[in-house]
């Protein structure tokens, strides 16, 4: 029941996050944007059991793929393969990390959100470079990859604070045991 509740909540949050991240202003100096989708994805990947989380990862991949889709002269520059492989791989990695750290914690969520954001942006850039040629790594590229990742880390902590009580995999006892150790 709790899993279904989180799953539904995340399904509602997903389109909201996509719309909201477009409405948020860019940040100087290189007009970096705030990404909310990786934060929501990491929350779902860590909080949900394996099968619902894989299903959620697939939905996130579809949404991100459609967000990125640019059709030029009848050709799509990005197919859905890259986002599907990316989000499913990250789900499996996060599952392993969650098991290794005995459940979800705000630190794991924050760190994973930052890593997913940096690899997502870096991956998009690399695919673009492979498609269009040249790899122009400038300070703008570094800032546009790095700053959204740091912001994701901060937003993830905030989201965990708001939704943490819903997480079934982080019982207070486990947290206490880890603190005692």
């Amino acid at each position: 029941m709790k899993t279904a509740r989180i799953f539904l909540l995340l399904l509602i949050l997903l389109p909201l996050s996509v719309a909201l991240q477009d409405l948020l202003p860019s940040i100087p100096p290189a007009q970096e944007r705030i990404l909310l989708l990786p934060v929501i994805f990491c929350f779902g990947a860590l909080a949900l059991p394996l099968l619902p989380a894989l299903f959620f990862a697939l939905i996130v991949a579809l949404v991100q793929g459609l967000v990125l889709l640019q059709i030029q002269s009848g050709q799509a520059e990005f197919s859905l393969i890259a986002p599907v492989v990316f989000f499913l791989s990250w789900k499996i990695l996060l599952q392993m990390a969650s098991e290794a750290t005995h459940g979800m914690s705000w630190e794991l969520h924050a760190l994973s959100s930052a890593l997913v954001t940096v690899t997502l942006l870096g991956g998009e850039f690399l695919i673009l470079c492979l498609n269009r040629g040249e790899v122009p790594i400038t300070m703008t590229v570094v800032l546009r990859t790095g700053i959204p990742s740091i912001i994701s880390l901060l937003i993830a902590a905030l989201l965990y604070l708001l939704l943490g009580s819903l997480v079934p995999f982080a019982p207070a006892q486990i947290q206490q045991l880890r603190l005692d150790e």
Partner: protein
Amino acid sequence: MKRIQIAILALLFAAAVALCVLGTGTLASLQSGFLEFLSPITRSGSAVKNSLGSLSKDLMTLDELQSEDTRLLAENKQLRAENNGLRDLQKDNEHLRRILGYRERSSFRLIPAVVLSHDAEAWWSTIKINRGSKDGIAPDMPVITDRGLVGKTTAVSRDMTEVMLITDENCKVAAKVEGTKEQGICAGVRAPEGELQLAFLNKLADLQPGQKVYTAGVSGGVFPSGIDLGVVKSFHARELDGEAILEPSADLGNLEEVFVITGAK
């Protein structure tokens, strides 16, 4: 693992494979449907954002008023409020006159649209506008302001459209330089910073900062001829050609209203 879990896993795998092999046409329809689904959320969010913007402006005015003399405070507040209202109206009036004048002067059939959001992608420059296929908009239509070219429409849903800005690397525009015979291809850069690159010029071209650049309007292309594109900031010769850096004429960072060109008058 139970049988049912294995079955679900197999289904998920099949769904993932199905998503990976979708064709361009299906993806375009899915994207259009997704835009339509997002449209009410984006519109509501945009309205809330605008309201919050005006609220913060009002709070600033109140802060200023607090420092005024106590005796004149009430009267002053009223006068200021009236004055601000009139000024806003005057500004709106001038703005609308300018837009209306441009629309009437223009030799194109124009559909006015409001910018709903600037998309959050790092490597693409796109915005969303509040017009769609029900207003007669289709993919690959030029988008302009009274100052100059903005970009072209890409994904179109019933009441929302994505516009690729000219600062995007994928938005290539044939361009000509004012007062010369120089023509080239104008596009943005991979990580757009607001400037444009005009490439394939003669490497001996004598371009000076401040020279205007217009669309060249190749036949069968998206952009008609003669639309203001930008001004030359600098020029340098490369090994095989010359390249100019342009400042776009339209203020792409602060777009509020745009026009979509649907055809000639």
